[in-house]
């Protein structure tokens, strides 16, 4: 079964440093998403991406965050200057169509900011 692949599985970074979280969506999917989950809390939407541009973003997705599809396979989330409160599990997802169905989530990257 096709999978969404995220790397690394765990990233530790110093406060103030930039991090890039990487995702390889399913190859025929056109819509891409980032979510985050602070430990023990709910999964929160960050951003959706289609046709090389952001289609929707949440209040969490401020100027510190950016997304990019640098080539035909990768989808990245960059946090420019990490804060302690950015520590969370970050999930990438992809879907064939717009709408709430058919999301496939990756296994996540655990980001720890120290």
């Amino acid at each position, binding site marked *: 079964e096709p999978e*969404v692949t995220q790397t690394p599985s765990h990233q530790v970074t110093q406060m103030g440093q930039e991090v890039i979280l990487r995702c390889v969506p399913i190859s025929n999917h056109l819509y891409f*998403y980032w*979510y985050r989950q602070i*430990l*023990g*809390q*709910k*999964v*929160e*939407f960050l951003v*959706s991406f289609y046709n090389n541009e952001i289609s*929707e973003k949440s209040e969490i997705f401020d100027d510190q965050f950016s997304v990019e599809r640098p080539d035909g396979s990768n989808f990245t989330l960059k946090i420019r200057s990490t804060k302690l409160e950015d520590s969370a599990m970050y*999930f990438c*997802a992809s879907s064939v169509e*717009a*709408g*709430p*169905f*058919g*999301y496939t*989530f*990756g*296994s*996540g990257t655990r980001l720890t900011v120290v």
Partner: protein
Amino acid sequence: GESVGLHLPTLSVQEGDNSIINCAYSNSASDYFIWYKQESGKGPQFIIDIRSNMDKRQGQRVTVLLNKTVKHLSLQIAATQPGDSAVYFCAEVGSGGSYIPTFGRGTSLIVHP
């Protein structure tokens, strides 16, 4: 608004029992509701959805009930198995013109053999 905390609600059941996981939602304008299962170390996985004009929908071993009067959603799992142990999230969709799922807080289901 919904309160958040460090501790998830937890439901412990014995293998073979039926499980009922509950969810209160806030927005009466939502078009769909979706249940996701999140196993340890993995991302959320779609289980079942229900449209807001329905009261009940059944899948394989799962049933979702929607009570719009009290804004309550439940997921019933029949003959619960150890492999059902996971965190279960409800999500609402379609409020405010967005079709991005908005997740609720989650319930941890622990199935004892």
